[in-house]
């Protein structure tokens, strides 16, 4: 092991009673990168993040975050990380300014007032600073939360589904901010369900049923999925979709606009299936599988759908 790692955890296990939320997760994340944390709901993303920043005790496993032991030095970790919770967790009955001031005071930031003014200015919320945080829309709440958790210039930023339920423009603005922070040297681990967001990350880690199924760059994951994908265009693709969903050799079928994506793990079986259900007026073309194709294949192959067990 050469370069020091921002997150270096081994075999993290978390059990709640007899339910296993996280089952042996390893993460070795270098400084300065942006990593995406993906996986279906209930796959253990939030639990893993909470263990990394010392909000949950681990059942098994150990490791360091920013060089500090996650079990024993959680206070040091808390000082140096910014953690943005999945649910808006700032105080809705405090004003925007009061929230920022509270955080600034808790981290004992020097020149607190100037710092808060600057943050409000960057956020573009200067004119609304005296409104209560509950009055903000979802997108603004997320931006406020991001501003609040980065005010103390953390080395590591942990974002738990920061853009869930946020409109596309606000999401784009949010990601611009994440990349801006990353350019200034912040390490970012962000969990998400959005494929376009995943594609903006340096690396992706995919969790399912509390286990790390795969990790790597977007290209790595697509290559490693071993998926073969064809697109079909033309009239009759709807009938085709119904037929293909029942065929063996077809992993999944999905619409992308007017085109149909048909993917399978085995080229021969897939092509055989396509030939038997060929229709007139439908043209076929092989394409590189998208990240979404790969993930859906991953979800299907990593056993049962964990979304049923929440």
């Amino acid at each position: 092991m050469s370069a020091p790692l921002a997150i270096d955890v081994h075999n993290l296990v978390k059990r709640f009673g007899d339910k296993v939320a996280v089952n042996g997760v390893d993460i070795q994340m270098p400084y300065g990168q942006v990593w995406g944390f993906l996986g279906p709901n209930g796959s253990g993303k939030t639990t893993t993040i909470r263990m990394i920043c010392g909000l949950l005790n681990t059942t098994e496993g150990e490791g360091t975050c920013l060089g500090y032991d996650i079990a024993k030095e959680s206070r040091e970790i808390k000082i140096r990380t910014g953690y943005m919770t999945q649910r808006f967790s700032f105080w809705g009955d405090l004003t925007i300014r009061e929230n920022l001031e509270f955080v600034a005071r808790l981290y004992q930031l020097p020149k607190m007032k100037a710092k808060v003014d600057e943050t409000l200015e960057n956020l573009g919320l200067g004119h609304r600073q005296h409104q209560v945080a509950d009055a903000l829309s979802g997108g603004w709440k997320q931006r406020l939360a991001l501003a609040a958790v980065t005010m103390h210039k953390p080395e590591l930023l942990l974002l738990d589904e920061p853009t869930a339920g946020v409109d596309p423009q606000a999401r784009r603005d949010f990601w611009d901010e994440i990349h801006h922070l990353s350019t200034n040297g912040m390490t970012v681990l962000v969990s998400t369900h959005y494929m376009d967001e995943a594609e903006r990350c340096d690396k992706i880690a995919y969790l399912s049923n509390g286990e790390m199924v795969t990790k790597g760059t977007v290209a790595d994951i697509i290559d490693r999925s071993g998926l073969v994908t064809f697109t079909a265009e033309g009239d009759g693709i709807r009938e085709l979709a119904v037929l293909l969903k029942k065929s063996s050799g077809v992993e999944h079928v999905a619409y992308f606009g007017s085109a149909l994506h048909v993917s399978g793990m085995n080229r021969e079986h897939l092509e055989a299936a396509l030939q038997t259900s060929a229709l007139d007026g439908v043209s076929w073309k092989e394409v590189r599988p998208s990240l979404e194709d790969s993930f859906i294949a991953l979800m299907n192959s990593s056993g049962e759908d964990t979304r049923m067990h929440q």
Partner: protein
Amino acid sequence: MILLASLRRVWAVWLKELIQMRRDRLTFGMMIGIPVIQLILFGYAINSDPKHLPTAIFVEEQTPIVRSILQGLENSGYYEIILQTSDPEEGQRLLASGKVAFVVTIPPGFTERLVRGDRPQILIEADASDPSASSNAISRARAIIAGALKRELTGTLSYLAPTREAYDLVVQAKYNPEGITYYNIVPGLLGIILTMTLVMITSIAMTRESEKGTMENLLAMPARPLEVMIGKISPYVMVGAVQTCVVLIAAKVLFRVPFEGEMWLLLVGVAVFVIANLALGFTFSTVAKTQMQAMQLTFFFFLPSMLLSGFMFPFRGMPEWAQNIGSVLPLTHFLRVVRGVMLKGSEFADVRDPIIAMGIFAIAVSILAMLRYRKTLD
């Protein structure tokens, strides 16, 4: 059909509530616990005819007649002679500090003057700051002494016994001579109000955070448990200060309750009491999972505080086990301080013990709160 569908929904809700109720152990426990405790308290603990009131005697002669009078007082069950003193000052001190409820003084030469038919005096000084505690004992005193003398004054002395009392019983009701009940109630109310509001406010301090989801954020930030606790309870010290002012002004202006003692001493007592209550509320908020549970815990604490502290009923009228429970409650000690300082003009030495007791309570529950406080979401 509409009715049936409606009944089905009612059934569904009923089942769901039943399941939830069973899972919520604390609420379930309190639903059972509160009626039981109320029954026990109202049924057994409350005694408006207190007996075995601690009594000091100051007697300067030992004659069969004097012994018989003292015996009679004790046999009545109202007076329990715990101390015989030869120093009149000591009797006064004991009365002021509340260690005794009565001082009975039989002057020297009592027997001789009685036999001579001079109608000598017997003095009973009573702590009347809580009139209901002492009034029955006082009103029985005359009959008790008459009965005792009747047994003694027989034979050659029988001529002294019948028609008219051969002695003069003087009762001095101290600290609240008119026996005005609200003199006792109003200072006590200060304690009740502080207990009720402060415990309740702080008991939801942490539960509100976990219910609104802000707890996770708070824990993710580098704040230590004690910091959070002090930060959360100290604003309410001011609330306590305002309430104290309101009650003291009302006591003076509306009820004209005398204020015999020193204001600073009262404020020291109030400060310790307020901190004890806030710490307790915070402890509740680390135990309760929801704000609702926190409220229930508050009420659960408030009930015995009101009933067993000596606020509603005389402390000494309760059986020993109830007094033991009462002794744990900060309100019991606070009542001694506030009544002592306001009505009796108690000095620091008189109220030192109750103040220390409240302080110990505050420290103990704070330690408990720190042990209960979770630094993680586990």
